[in-house]
């Protein structure tokens, strides 16, 4: 094997995304579009969490906007956002050379392995809400976490077989590193040499401000609570009707509504546990049903 080399740096944030898209497309992934619902992490897209279950092979990659209401900072923190992008890759079963494929993706976006210190540091991923966990690492580049790399072991409380390899890139953070930018809002969103150069701030700053106000001040807790109950009811009914996909959608909706209520600080620790338990039951219920149906379809 020859020593690895890197490509030249991408020209912009979107160029970095396009390189990842092209790279993972070349590895045989279906390039999906973001899921059209509010989720807290790219993993929650049914293309990862549900497809990791059942016996069928699967390869997909996509950008997923992620919303974390409590992390919003009114656009004033250079590193924290209430809305940001994750790049998500799932390969089922994981190919034996997945680590190499992953490292090549970093070289593809201009990270030179002969200059930068890339490390796999133990970090076992877990998402109790969907009953999922796996073993893997945080990938560090010069001390910065640029990705989460996981071999799923369980989803929805069920052992997975075959095992999926899952990669999550924190796109803004990765781009800040590649471009040497200290403030996320200064990232070049499109090509700075183009006719209309746009920064990340041009695209998202106002959104962060207004959404922060909504998350922390304006969200109507009482209404949200009733929405939560509604989502729970709908999800349960769908599951009982044997339709795990929409049942899962409503579990996601309930999860986001809970995150909004939580960001308002309107929940005591005990209530909080109870809410998390309710979301978990919905998500697990849908996942279990999906897994069962996939087995039947494959049989």
């Amino acid at each position: 094997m020859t020593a690895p080399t890197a490509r030249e740096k991408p020209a912009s944030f979107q160029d970095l995304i396009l390189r990842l898209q092209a790279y993972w497309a070349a590895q045989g992934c279906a390039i999906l579009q973001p899921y059209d619902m509010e989720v807290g992490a790219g993993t929650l897209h049914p293309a990862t969490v549900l497809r990791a279950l059942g016996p069928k092979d699967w390869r997909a990659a996509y950008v997923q906007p992620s919303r974390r209401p409590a992390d919003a900072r009114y656009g004033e923190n250079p590193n924290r956002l209430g809305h940001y992008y994750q790049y998500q890759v799932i390969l089922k079963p994981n190919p034996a050379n997945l680590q190499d494929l992953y490292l090549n993706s970093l070289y593809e976006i201009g990270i030179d392995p002969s200059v930068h210190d890339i490390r796999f540091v133990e970090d076992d991923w877990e998402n109790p809400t969907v009953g999922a966990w796996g073993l893997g690492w945080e990938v560090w580049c010069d001390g910065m976490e640029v990705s989460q790399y996981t071999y799923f072991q369980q989803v929805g409380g069920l052992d997975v077989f075959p095992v999926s390899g899952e990669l999550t890139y924190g796109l803004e953070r990765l781009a800040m590193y590649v471009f040497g930018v200290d403030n996320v809002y200064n990232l070049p969103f499109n090509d700075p040499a183009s006719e209309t150069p746009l920064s990340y701030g041009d695209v998202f700053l106002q959104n962060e401000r207004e959404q922060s106000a909504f998350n922390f001040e304006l969200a109507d807790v009482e209404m949200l609570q009733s929405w939560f109950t509604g989502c729970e009811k709908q999800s349960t009914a769908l599951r009982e009707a044997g339709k795990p996909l929409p049942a899962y959608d409503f579990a996601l909706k309930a999860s986001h509504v809970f995150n909004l209520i939580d960001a308002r600080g309107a929940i005591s620790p005990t209530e909080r546990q109870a809410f998390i338990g309710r979301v978990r039951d919905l998500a697990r219920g849908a996942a279990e049903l999906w897994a069962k149906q996939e087995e039947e379809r494959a049989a």
Partner: protein
Amino acid sequence: MAELLLELFSEEIPARMQAKAEADLKAAVESGLSEAGVAFERITALSGPRRLTVCVEGLPAKSADVKEERKGPKVGAPEKAVEGFLRGAGLNSIDEAEVRSDPKKGDFYVAVREVPGRPLPDIIAEMVPDIVRSFHWPKSMRWGRGELRWVRPLQRVLCIFDGKVVDFEIDGLTSGNETEGHRVHGRGPFKVSSFDEYKTLLESKGSVILSREDRRLLIDEKAHVICHERGLELVEDKGLLEEVTGLAEWPVVILGDMDPDFLSLPGEVIQLSMRTHQKYFAVRDPKTGDLAPHFVVVANIDATDGGKAIAEGNSRVLSARLDDARFFWDNDRKTPLATMAEKLKTIDFKKELGTVADKVERIAALARDLAPKVGADPDLAERAARLAKADLVSGMVGEFPELQGVMGGYYAREQGEDEAVATAIAEHYKPVGPSDQVPSEPVSIAVALADKLDTLVGFWAIDEKPTGSKDPFALRRAALGVVRIILENGVRIDQTQYLADGIADMLLRQPNAVDISAEQIEHAIASASPETSVADLRREFAATQRGALHQLFGLADKKAEDLLAFFADRLKQYLRDAGARYDLIDAVFALENQDDLVLIVKRVEALGAFLETDDGANLLAGYKRAANILKAEEKKDGRAFEGTPDPALFEQDEERSLAAAITESVTSAEAALAGEDFEKAMGALSSLRAPVDAFFDAVTVNAESAELRQNRLLILTSIRDALHRVADFSKLAA
């Protein structure tokens, strides 16, 4: 003699698991070989981020031939028995069996089977897959479509015996003679045929330092050198050193810069942020002893730019981390500790023991109570206790739980609390381990003791005690902490009373735990005088012979006794660790009513010093002689000799002078003991040496006259009793 080389090459093994896995693999290979009856000369094991390696030298080409013997029936046994024996041993006729003689059994048959030795490659090809399949990792996983479990995907198995590949397969993975080096510097793969070649190739072309020890020493040395060159000093951290040793195959030590503005943050925050999040070593200015605006990072690559990009990148990440920390620091200081403490009402300490706010109330009362006994101002002790837990709800402690207490101390100082209060808050969790410092300021002592006693008393009240190796609430640590605080500061408290009152108080709050209804308790309390403290209540109801409270206080006393024994065990451990002789400790603990830790230790020390002296050693010999005679005679007569000798029966001067000496020395020993002066007490007893020696030289204890004999045995009894005032000498080694 041949060599076995085995390498299990995988994706990155968590740093914390490598050393144990290395030892486990070595042990598994050793025991696999010994089970197969194979001897060897030397076994070496290595481990690193991506591999476990074992090399066994001095192996034979095949295992030894062995004779297997199977005993059969007697010669002339019934045909059935002989047939069964032949079937079981796989013999065709009884002629193939040997006949042996046994003096008791007579002649009997033995089937002898020669089992030829097996070639080592066959043994290894069975052994290695077994080891891999049954290897224990703290957490293991499956991958792809395989069923095999390993800590992370296993990529290669290199297995060579005597220069040749040992062929086997583990779940689709075929053994071979290839290994891989550092991903960037020299990946290979490299074909190897011996351990020497393996080491040479990997350490040169492969850029992998195979031994943990080599990597650790290299990192340690380079880190010191790089600091020294810049006039700086490395902040040593053994745990971190071990961790980074497991994170790099080719460690390169780099000094990075930190924005000096961050030095306004508490040093603990900077250091912890570096350590837990980034695995950096902190750096000090040797002149001031303060942190310097730099850090040391261990990379896994010799970068082509000399590490410039790595230093800059790491520095940027650190800035982002410390920005977060500064946000917490600034934000936390906007809220007074007393306001934070309000939130403790929503956090359970332990379900049965109420919230953290409840605990704070209890600690505040106890700290106030303890304050005069440790020379602290009660108001300051109570104030410190009330604020001690507030930082648990601060942003900084949420981020860095290890800084509990420490941050509270900083925030208290910032809001202008008395320095003693701030220090007590910062130190009240101490000591957190056997080598951690013990608080020595009076207010700190009061709060640290109150916190730990409250925890212990609470858990004892609800019967949640450590069992075997399980101690999820670190109660042993808490008790050892109490022992150390008391001893190292010479704190004198009546432990029995504090523990019994504390447990009674807990039980009063928790009536259900002891099958006494709340109504019964309320009724009983209502009948007592108002404003009565738990301690008074306890005394009042201990005297009555019935009722709910009497029952409850009886239970509390029993639990307190058990807890006191738990303290005694910690104290024994502490004294042994400090090098005190087991027998001295046992001799002191054998005395009754030992609940003052300070006195116990004083006594052990005085006893040790006393036995070092000539008089002490000889007196012990005299004691042993007296005790042995007494024991033998008591056994002979089937009764104990107790009481005082009758002076009228004394015949010899030696009897009279010994009796007089005993009376005199016991009187002065008693006086010294009352003044807690153990040296003096033992000194008083040491004057017994001469009369005891003289007595044994001149007097026959087993006199003809029964009366005389009994009287002389009673003299021996009084020697024994005299010495037992300071320790149970029977427990002492001669």
